[in-house]
């Protein structure tokens, strides 16, 4: 029976069946656990993809649409 290393088999037998099929992962790849690993290199959460995505933040408070509108107003 696959189980948690710190649980006796007798305890696991009393729990829902799913605890017999528990999956082992490496803490280092599960950065959600805040074990001091860099979130941006988490393979588990494929967050490396965030680096290729457009930033969600309005960094400068200036948008292209604002500039176009300003340009249009000039005419």
């Amino acid at each position, binding site marked *: 029976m696959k189980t948690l290393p710190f649980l006796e088999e007798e305890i696991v037998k009393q729990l829902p069946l*799913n605890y017999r099929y528990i*999956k*082992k992962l490496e803490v280092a790849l599960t950065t959600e656990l805040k074990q001091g690993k860099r979130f941006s290199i988490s393979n588990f959460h494929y967050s490396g993809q965030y680096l290729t995505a457009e930033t969600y933040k309005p960094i400068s408070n200036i948008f292209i649409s604002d500039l176009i509108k300003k340009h249009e107003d000039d005419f």
Partner: protein
Amino acid sequence: MILVLSYKKFEQGTDPVVDWLIHYNADFMRVSVDDIASVQQNYTVDIYNDDIIYKGKSLKDKVKVIWNRRVLVDFQIKAELENLSAKAQLRGEANQELRHLTEFIAESLIDKKWLPPFKSRNINKLDQLRSAKNSGLNVPRSKVLNNKADVISFNNELDGGLITKPIDFCGYYTHEADTYTIFTNELTPERMADLPNFFFPTLFQEKIEVEYEIRVFYLDGEFDSIVTVNKSLTKDVDKKLYSADSNSHQVPYNLSSLLKDQLTGLMQSLNLNIGSIDVMKSKNGRFYFLEVNPVGQYLSESCTGNFFTEKKIAEWLIKSDK
């Protein structure tokens, strides 16, 4: 004013929206359970006058809309105590005090516009399946069983076998360099043979032969959907285990009008105005509802699908504050 309820620390679903609220100069206040449990923040819950004063402001007066993102209470005693059972009891009792306080504060603000409504936040997943079926959606045939004979009988009724997963949730158990958690598991013939005659009530579902899985973000009648396509032959039954696989690709996806109508009906029946919905398309072309998380994560899909979901949430809050 917009009241944002979330963690004090970084929360990937909260902070990008707060950035947009700042950008739009929105009138908002962020409050965390840490603040409620804090011995540093000054606030008063005035039961006699039916008001909540936080940082000198009457929340009953000022607040029009509440983003109910994270309000989980988990008070920790920050000291070692030799008596572990006393420590657990103290923590439990302190958390119960905070839970009652949080519920009272929420009830006091119940006439405000909530995203999602306070009482809809923790919807039972079994209830979700029943409501989805009543809304005309396909759902996997599901049973909670406690004995081997019924599992075998249920399995024999189905062509594709069974999967099992927690009724609600399993967190991470960390031990040295490893961590343990429960995903969706296939009930293989070996596992079936190993079942004891009786066991703790466990959820079993019909295994659907999946073509692909769709993550749908729903906000007040609007949908942003993304599909995870994986052509690998040896994929797990739980999408979370193959999302990072190099054979997995995520692309924006258009839901059919019928499916949108059915999902909208479900969300209305669950009294939800926001949620991350998991849908599966089977190899025989049918769409199956799996579950909805009213406070699910969305940022990865927002970035990959270029949806700007965080901006849409901020704009919804601002619109509702008018």
